[in-house]
């Protein structure tokens, strides 16, 4: 039996200074409505109910925008073909070649900080035997894929350079029929000429971790003696870039910035005053809070305020409201992702399915299998390595399908909430966000709901702004 709540139109209302809108979950699109209709739908009993309003409501009902339909069952669609999908189409493997590191970064999950129980810090290295088994397992589960993507992760993977060389030699010799891609994430401080030659020869894609200019970077990324690592990382990056550029493969280099919201964004973004970082290299960013989720992060008011302002400028540039703005490279990168989201809102759907699940979880094990030094499997390198729920198998016993089902069907921790959530189609929560004390927890999942709804609302508002820029703000 449906509750009264469930008989209400499944919609979310939005308004801008000049216009009124409804977002229909069943059509996954936004419609411009009159103020009277908006007020009526918002439960305002004083709204004068004219023929025009009634006609508009009738039309909205007829077109399915006011449908009250919810998914009847929350169940991830990939569950139906899970075993088959895992057999043939694994797309990437991430090998944790070592757990040791030459730096002691303050926010590092290996650093055993208070409140951060993410990974075990040790001097362990992966054995060649384990690495070979992992590669064989991957190839055996990627028969339908035309590429093999092998990523090396740490600790600091360059501490295990000899192992990396052996793994590459093994993979090239045995699996040359596939297109093989190699990735490496490094702090960059240990790079040698021998390594550079090897990386060029095998066309490695390399991601350097650089958090900002020296002042910001060195706050966290320190050597054991407490000195900062920025200068070493930067000079190695420049050296590598020159060599890659001479081979025409400079596009394979990038940097990842871990942004600390305690800092002033202006200071972080001063990195781009250097034309190398601004013009030459691909940059992506993640917020330190996302890296160490369990720990409450300190966010400076200046950070939030400034980032909102930068987002506003980015929209002004993207929607061509103001010409000639200088937009931070980090924000420009998000344009494409936003465009994809706008496309889904533009084209819409014809009603929610009876069975489905919020977006979010990838197919664990298939997308980016993380294999730690001991040969244990995890859905990716971002999850807690000591969480029982996240260990989805190991190199000797293969995938643990039961665990994978749990990680994939994570929305079933909170089925009622998900069924009735207006942001259900835009939610990106995965098991990583639902893990508490090593197990999957509905309570933990719900802690992140507000953020998901807020992000979805922001996407819809930006989409509306884009539409208004094309219509009422058209120059």
């Amino acid at each position, binding site marked *: 039996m449906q509750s009264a709540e469930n008989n209400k139109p499944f919609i979310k209302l939005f308004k801008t200074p000049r216009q009124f809108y409804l977002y229909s979950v069943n059509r996954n699109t936004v419609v411009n409505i009159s103020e009277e209709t908006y007020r009526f739908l918002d439960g305002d009993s004083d709204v004068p109910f004219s023929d025009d309003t009634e006609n508009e409501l009738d039309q909205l009902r007829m077109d399915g925008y006011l449908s009250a339909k919810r998914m009847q069952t929350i169940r991830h669609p990939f569950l139906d*073909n899970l075993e*088959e*999908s895992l057999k*043939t*189409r694994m*797309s990437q493997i991430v090998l944790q070649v070592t757990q040791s590191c030459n730096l002691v970064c303050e926010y590092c999950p290996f650093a055993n900080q208070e409140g951060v129980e993410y990974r075990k810090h040790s001097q362990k290295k992966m054995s060649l035997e384990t690495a070979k088994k992992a590669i064989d397992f991957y*190839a*055996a589960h*990627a*028969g*339908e894929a*035309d*590429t*093999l993507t092998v990523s090396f992760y740490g600790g600091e993977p360059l501490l295990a350079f000899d192992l990396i060389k052996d793994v590459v030699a093994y993979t*090239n010799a*045995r*699996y*040359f*029929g*596939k*297109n*093989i891609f190699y990735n490496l994430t490094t702090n960059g401080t240990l790079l040698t000429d021998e390594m550079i030659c090897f990386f060029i020869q095998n066309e490695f894609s390399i991601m350097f971790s650089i958090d900002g200019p020296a002042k910001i970077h060195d706050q966290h990324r320190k050597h054991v003696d407490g000195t900062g690592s920025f200068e070493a990382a930067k000079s190695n990056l420049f050296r590598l870039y020159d060599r890659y550029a001479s081979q025409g493969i400079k596009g394979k280099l990038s940097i990842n910035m871990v942004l600390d919201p305690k800092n002033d964004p202006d200071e972080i973004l001063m990195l781009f005053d250097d034309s190398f970082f601004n013009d030459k290299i691909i940059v992506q960013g993640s917020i330190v809070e996302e890296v160490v989720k369990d720990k409450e992060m300190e966010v400076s008011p200046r950070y939030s305020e400034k980032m909102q302002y930068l987002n506003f400028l980015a929209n002004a540039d993207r929607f061509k409201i103001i010409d000639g703005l200088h937009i931070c490279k980090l924000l420009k990168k998000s344009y*494409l992702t936003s*465009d*994809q989201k706008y*496309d889904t809102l533009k084209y819409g759907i014809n009603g929610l399915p009876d069975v489905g699940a919020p*977006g979010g979880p*990838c*197919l664990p094990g298939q*997308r980016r299998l993380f294999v730690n030094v001991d040969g244990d499997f995890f859905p990716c390198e971002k999850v807690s390595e000591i969480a029982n729920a996240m260990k989805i198998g190991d190199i000797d016993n293969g995938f643990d399908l039961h665990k994978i089902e749990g990680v994939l069907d994570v929305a079933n921790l909170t089925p009622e909430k998900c069924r009735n959530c207006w942001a259900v189609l835009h939610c990106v929560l995965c098991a990583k966000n639902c893990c508490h004390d090593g197990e999957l927890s509905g309570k933990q999942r719900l802690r992140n709901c507000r953020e998901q709804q807020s992000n979805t609302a922001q996407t819809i508002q930006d989409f509306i702004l884009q539409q208004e820029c094309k219509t009422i703000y058209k120059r």
Partner: protein
Amino acid sequence: MNYLLYPYSDDLADVVRYIPDYHADMQVSKLASPYAWKYNIKNNENVSFDFPLDDVEGVIFAEVSKKYQKNTLLYKDIVAKIQYTLNSKKDVICVKQLQEQDAADLKKLAQENGCAFDYYESKRNNYDMESMFQTQECIMIGVGGTLEEVTTLPVIVNLAARLKEAGYRVTTVADDMNVSLLGFERFPSYFFDETQDYMQIVHKFNKFYKNLQLLHQPEIILTQIPNGFMKYSNSCLENFGVKAFMLSQAVNLDYFVLCASLEPTSIEEFEQLSEMFKYRFGFEINAIGFSDQRIDDTASKERDMVIYNQVSCDTVAKYINALNTCKKRIFCFNMFDLSSFGPLAENVLGELSGG
């Protein structure tokens, strides 16, 4: 003559099946493929190349699919195996496109060893004729994919065979080196030359088809349409529709088969697509061949490339059955089911004879 074929993958199954129909003296008795492919070969009968070539008179080196054409490790492996074959005094049929220097070196090596090196790339016919639009007199059937990676080869090879069996003279054109083994025509190289003016290409392309008619006197020309018809997203364009549009300006298609992955699309939506094709390309969709793959949207968006997941044969059968019970005019079939091609050929002939 018995040949070994290398590197073999399942998309060559139809070509291998029909080689004896086109070459009475040629038989593929062994298949070999790189170790890395062993998991995606359905019958899993592939063998390693590393054995003495005593049981065969020669080796056919097939072209690899587009997705592997930039794989330098694989290219080096193939060149090394051609050298090994020639040094073993065995003939080589090389459909694989080689770098000019490698081709010249291998030709020389073949001469030194006194064996044949039949290099198909050198046989490409560009049919460059004077500029004047030519009318087409035979029936033209086109086969194209929704997106670039959707295979069309099973439809091309099997439909050609069924139409031949039905007694028609069929000339087939395909953008695939390997079908040269079946005597199929390949697209002229200028069709893919991005430095040429589009209008000139369309003109030349029109002549190309006219010349095929003059040369082979076919009753039917069956042509593959290169690249996809649609884009996946604004960042994954899949070369959408450009070649299709050029081809549609050069010739008129009488029947069109669309090859598609198995997405949850209703027959009504396909009919709308057909309507759109009519206005954009000048032909409608007569039949749709479905593969056993489905786009993984989440993965595709994350990786900015189209990623497919396998679906079960049962799912494909149910889906096609549901579409065909709608009694609409688009004929739907499973392109990996050999028994589909008899009914497809009947549908083609029925439609073209006004039945």
